[in-house]
């Protein structure tokens, strides 16, 4: 109802295809960015960083990645956990092999490595579709986890197979390791998220994004009108894996600091990220954010309510948390199968059409 699009007209295609064509949206976006970069860092403490913000930022990156593959290109993947692991182990190997390499580059390179691995596991998608593919991607999940667990080279022969992040810094601020301050870690991850979200947006609105969506909506027709299915699917796998790899690298190096592959990158991660994009909304960048926020915040919120406020035993709280999260997922799917993004779109449409009902 507060949208005023009258008089907001476009004289060039560049204006017409920008990300936020509505003036008010554009301003909202600038404000959110300003708050995230200039205000939040001053109010954030260790708890908020570790329990809420970092998981949110990192999962949002992973969700963006999976959304590109599943939401935009229509290839359901349950291998996210495995690709996160590739990102994590790649960053560990790169960091320890090249101690002087800038951490920012390390994270990007981890993404590149993961992209390569992702493409490899994307090859079957040329023949396999739908659920069959979803289950097939589990092969990546299990095999990769097994590989990192089994081959000592990946964890530098440490006794336990755990990897621990060495301290790395940028501009004199520690980014990784125990001495990294909350705001710094937050800003580091935020920068990646904003950057990658921007990239995701660019890719999805251009030729590549359209070819992904074409494959998703009707693969045969897409091929017949000239979309190369091999290139489209593999590029989706590559880009998706790049994102997830970056998320994995951040997950390990900035967020947790030490991981054990089977536990940190298990199948539950794959499901979690898939939940995020379904609840958030398939084929929507905003949805990736919303889904990640939802699934990071709801458990924390429930826990705080039940344990800290109501003083319930922790196990009952967890059981109820499971029920609530599961119930919410079902409820969401019933109420709005296309996720939070669709709710947002509908709300926005409502406001755009206000006062008209349709």
């Amino acid at each position: 109802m507060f949208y005023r699009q009258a008089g907001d007209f476009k004289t060039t295609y560049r204006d017409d295809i920008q990300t936020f064509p509505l003036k008010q949206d554009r301003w909202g976006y600038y404000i959110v960015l300003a708050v995230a970069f200039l205000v939040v860092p001053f109010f954030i403490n260790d708890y908020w960083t570790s329990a809420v913000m970092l998981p949110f930022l990192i999962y949002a990156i992973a969700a963006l990645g999976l959304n590109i593959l599943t939401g935009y290109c229509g290839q359901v993947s349950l291998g996210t956990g495995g690709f996160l692991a590739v990102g994590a182990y790649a960053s560990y190997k790169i960091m320890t092999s090249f101690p002087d390499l800038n951490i920012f580059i390390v994270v990007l390179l981890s993404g590149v490595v993961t992209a390569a691995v992702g493409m490899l596991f994307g090859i079957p998608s040329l023949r396999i579709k739908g659920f069959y593919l979803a289950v097939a991607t589990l092969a990546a999940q299990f095999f990769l986890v097994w590989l990192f667990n089994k081959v000592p080279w990946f964890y530098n022969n440490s006794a336990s197979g755990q990897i621990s992040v060495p301290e790395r810094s940028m501009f004199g601020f520690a980014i990784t390791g125990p001495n990294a301050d909350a705001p710094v870690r937050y800003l580091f991850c935020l920068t990646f998220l904003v950057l990658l979200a921007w990239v995701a947006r660019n890719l999805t609105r251009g030729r590549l994004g359209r070819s992904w969506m074409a494959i998703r909506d009707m693969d045969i027709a897409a091929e017949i009108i000239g979309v190369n299915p091999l290139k489209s699917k593999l590029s989706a796998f590559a880009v998706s894996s790049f994102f997830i790899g970056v998320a994995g690298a951040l997950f390990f190096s900035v967020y947790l600091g030490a991981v054990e592959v089977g536990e940190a990158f298990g199948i539950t991660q794959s499901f979690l990220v898939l939940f995020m994009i379904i609840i958030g909304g398939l084929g929507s960048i905003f949805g990736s954010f919303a889904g990640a926020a939802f699934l990071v915040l709801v458990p924390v919120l429930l826990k705080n309510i039940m344990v800290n406020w109501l003083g319930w035993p922790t196990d009952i709280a967890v059981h109820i948390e499971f029920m609530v999260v599961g119930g919410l997922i079902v409820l969401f799917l019933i109420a709005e199968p296309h996720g939070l993004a669709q709710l947002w779109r509908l709300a926005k449409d409502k406001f755009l059409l206000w006062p008209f009902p349709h």
Partner: protein
Amino acid sequence: MQSSPQSTLDTFPKYLIRNSDVHASRAAMRHKNYGVWQSWTWAELFEEIRAYSIGLQLIGLKAGDKIAIVGSNRPRLYWTFAAAQALGAVPVPVYAESVAEEMEFVLEHADVQYAVCQDQEQVDKVQSMTERLPALQHLLYDEHRGLREYNHDKLHSIAGLQEQGRAALVANPDLAKEWLQGIDASHGGELCVMLYTSGTTGRPKGVMLSYDNLLLSSLNGNAFDKLDHNEEIIAYLPLAWVGDHVFSYGQFLTAGYCVCCPESGETIDIDRREIAPTYFFAPPRVFESLLTTITVRMDDAGKVKGAMYKYFMAVAERCGEKILNGQSVNIVDKLKYKVGNLFVYGPLRNQLGMSRIKVGYTAGEAIGPEIFSFYRSLGINLKQLYGQTEASVYITAQPDGEIYPDTVGKPSIDVELLLADDGEVLYRSPGVFMGYYKNDEATRSTKTEDGWVHTGDAGFIDDDGHLHIIDRAKDVGKLLDGSMFPPKYIENKLKFFPSIQEVVAFGDQRDFATVMINIDLTSVSNWAERNNIAYASYQELASHPQVYDMIREHVDQVNRDLSEEPRMAGAQIKRFLVLHKELDADDGELTRTQKVRRSFIAERYLPLIEGLYDGSTERFISTEVVFEDGRRGEISATVRIEEMEIYGASELRESA
């Protein structure tokens, strides 16, 4: 670039030159084409038009030639005006939708040598009549689609001509100077444009207007509403209509504002919203249909939203107009209006693309007072205007702060009014046309020796100096007691009620006024549904007592209104009936343009009319009808006739 001194700004091309100088980098024109608003600055516009003009010159257009413009609101068609005028040629815009026969008449009558068409469709139309248009030499077109394989000997694309023009300008630097000199040499008294009246009666007449006519009218119009180069308007009305010509061409050049051309007919609502014009002009039907859309869409709203809309619209009805007029309202209402503005009026204006409207006009025919008030109460400064092609539009207009729904305002700047004995309105102004082309007889009968022009409309001027238009002068009749009987006026008043579809009023040479009413099926059936009234057919609904009650209230309201106006009080409706069937063009009761054929109806429903005047309370009637599949049948009913109360002027005042 050479700018002409102010004093010699007496033709439109000269204004173009001035604007390209003064407003060089401001947007002059936009056209939603290929998905975005392609824009031209004044400097670019000047260049385009000059190239076009030179191109026209190359194919032989010269002073005095007539160039027809056939098509909708496209920039290049607008440019044709200036490009032709710069060469002294006379543009003749033609209604693009008019039937071939009519178009042929105009093209032939105007002796056009050149015709500019929008697209293949128009080209085909014009080419189909070339045999009967010996004067026609060249055809130009804007959109090339489908024309690739046409014979291009006499067919030119405007863009191609512009290219040729540009090339010529490069090749011959003197050409530009000569061109400017040609413009300088022209003067305000020359024939500027010929606009053909739509000709509801008889053949269209070519109204010759001079630069002085249009320029002064435009300048006066600008001054009246303080319009300047900051305005943006959307051009969507027929080019051949004088309203569009003045708004999208005359005022555009004189004020130097920006004209935006919509993408297509279907996208006009979106395009208007995108542009959000600051100055808007539309005939009442546009406002009516917009309001209908709003109402229909709001009917589907949920409970909360619907209630909110109703509540705030009631607030707006109560105080919206007052606030717009700057009158004082109580603080609570003011506050409510503010809230309403946030939740309803603002968004609504936004949806209509009227958020930025400084002034909007409705003209052409009478607008329903409810419709008029609706827009004003939303905070849109909508005004009424009374004008004619022969006057270069402006005769009267409502000044800010003096807006009354039932008047058409005070005389515009430099306009004098005169009321003839029979109530016909005459005017005299600088905008008065030069004459009808090749029709001196008509010119003489319309324009008097001393410059007064007959409008053909009957009206009166009230105490505040506002003009009221009642009806076409020739349609106004008299009751037997001598009082005035304006049937259209009465019919329109009734038709403004949504539940009334059609009205036929009788009274000329009779004792009193009566009406036959057609209910509006959509509106009344909705109402019936809400009130749990069961009915099986139109006939049953029309004769339902509750419907009669409702119509009775409406008629009563009209009678009260009429009684307030001394000259109309005698025409109050004494008796009315609700017709048992819808008046239908298939049965010959309406014209194909949905106008009532009064005499035919009077004959067909003679028993009913007798009933209206012989005092009976009901009448049986049986009529033959044509069904949709062409079969014929009988439809019969006993129609109830009701008596109304008549108010005396004093009586009402006492009761009030």
